[in-house]
């Protein structure tokens, strides 16, 4: 790729971009940016008004933010979201790195079948299984704590994570593994001490992708976190919206607060998120 670019430059001295064309493109891009950023602006602006000022006009204030902190257990819900995300991602990374390494490097006879069985589960929409899953987890007494939701999030994230980790470990040369074995390490030790440290970028991709998915989810949390004290921020917000609360500025303050952690993760790990989203395109 790079060589092609270099040749093109060498053969044909770069034309100066016509100013007017650049200006037109920029104007278009700014217009699109306005459309994409509008909801964020709306949330910020609305949350900085009292309900009265929002409806009938009036000065900015922090009234709605104070009301949000009084009316809702947002701190507790943010904590719940953090716990649920962390636990689910830990399980996903634990099982998917091991499975990926096994499929890529420890070829056993049923490996292809087991790999396909796991990845085929990606085809199952959550809505198709939520009813039996709900009943099962209720039978197992797992709906009164984080456990049921955490297990469900972990199961939902595992197929794609396993696919990603398998692809990643396959790109590691076999020599690296064999050298470890010849040095007297067990396969488990090769995995822990050699393969896993090399897989950190793939693990980060899995973590970021799952964080955003789990943090933003409503359905699983709504049904599997039966205890109101266990609700995540997104579920708390969804329930509030369904209750048709009329205090829009408070709702917008809540929305913004719930979105901030995901936005921060996005800004810091943007590259990894892009990698994860486009990883399914294949070779």
């Amino acid at each position, binding site marked *: 790729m790079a060589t092609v670019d270099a040749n093109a430059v060498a053969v044909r001295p770069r034309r100066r971009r016509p100013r007017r064309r650049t200006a037109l493109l920029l104007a278009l891009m700014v217009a699109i940016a306005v459309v*994409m*950023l509008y909801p964020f602006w709306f949330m910020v602006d609305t949350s900085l008004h009292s309900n009265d000022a929002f409806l009938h006009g009036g000065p900015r204030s922090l009234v709605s933010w104070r009301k949000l902190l009084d009316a809702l257990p947002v701190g507790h819900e943010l904590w719940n979201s953090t716990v649920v995300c962390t636990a689910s991602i830990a399980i996903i990374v634990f099982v998917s790195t091991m499975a990926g390494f096994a499929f890529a490097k420890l070829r056993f006879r049923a490996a*292809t079948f087991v*790999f396909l069985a796991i990845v085929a589960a990606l*085809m199952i929409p959550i809505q*198709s299984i939520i009813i039996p899953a709900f009943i099962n987890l209720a039978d197992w007494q797992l709906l009164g704590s984080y456990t049921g939701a955490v297990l469900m999030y972990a*199961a939902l994230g595992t197929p794609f994570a396993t696919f990603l980790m398998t692809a990643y470990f396959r790109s590691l040369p076999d020599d690296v593994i064999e050298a470890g074995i010849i040095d007297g390490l067990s396969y488990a030790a090769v995995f822990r001490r050699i393969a896993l440290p090399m897989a950190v970028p793939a693990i980060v991709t899995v973590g970021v992708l799952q964080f955003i998915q789990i943090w933003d989810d409503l*359905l699983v949390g709504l049904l599997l976190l039966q205890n109101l004290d266990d609700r995540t921020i997104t579920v708390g917000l969804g329930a509030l919206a369904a209750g048709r609360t009329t205090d829009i500025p408070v709702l*917008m303050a809540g929305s913004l607060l719930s979105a901030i952690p995901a936005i921060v993760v996005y800004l810091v790990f943007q590259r990894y998120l*892009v990698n994860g989203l486009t990883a399914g395109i294949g070779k």
Partner: protein
Amino acid sequence: MTQAASTIAHADLPPAPTGPRRTALQRQRARVGIAMAAPAFLLVAVLLGGPIIEAVYYSMTQWDGLTTTWIGPSTYTHELHNPFFWRVLQNNGLLLLAVPVAVAIPFGIAVLLNARVPGWRVFRSIYFLPTAISWVVIGMVALRFFAAEGSLNGILQAVGLGAIHTDLLSSERSALFAVAITFVWSMVGTNTIIFLTGMATLDLSLAEAARVDGASGWQILLRITLPQLRRFIQFSVVMTLISAFTALFSLIFVMTGGGPGFGTTTLEFFVYQTAFANTDFGTGAMLGVILFLIMSVIGIVQVRLLRTDD
């Protein structure tokens, strides 16, 4: 979900050594391999695989969560006579009309970004930002945007079109239209990134050669660029299709609650409503199975397309 099909299409793990002359090391390796793959397999089998089989069983029963009465496959033919079921499928069908738009607009945006005007990276980040936001939050803002006293009417008034007073969420068809617009907006980030990734893989020398041969910009786009991007376009279409069927629960839950009437109730939302609002678990399970069948068809078609590509 989307990634499944392409993965299956490209799944060719190296073969395992077989035969009687496996060494002790190979046997040990296989044992460790099975042990390491087991947790992932069990997690998926117990929490996803089991329930999909149970769903098929429950779909043939009359079941309110407590008592189960076996009825058989006639539940399916019975549902075919339910006018609400067809209404819901019609909503899904209408939402599919938004898919081409949700693919075409990001394609245009990717072309725009790919011109690499100074500062394009900042714009890329901005366009991709909504990908991080929950559908709950998006629905919350969209609800305010389309409301009778909401921002859309404010904007119309500001540009001198105050005579057009909209209230999209108050009638069935227009509410679905509002959901579709919100859906298209939400897909911009993901699809733009897919196309940008694709455009980065383009072999520029082909377009250059065509230009030297006197091809116009449009000809180059249609004859050279688009065919080279085929796989990315397919991926984006399937991704959008799957989102239209299975990702809109939270949006509809927050924005319209499925209404007015059945105006914005899609199949996935109907599953939830039937099972958890009306506690008819048997019918809910059946609707879930139907959704699964539709998704499987999309998946199989995608695998076929990718296989023929290679």
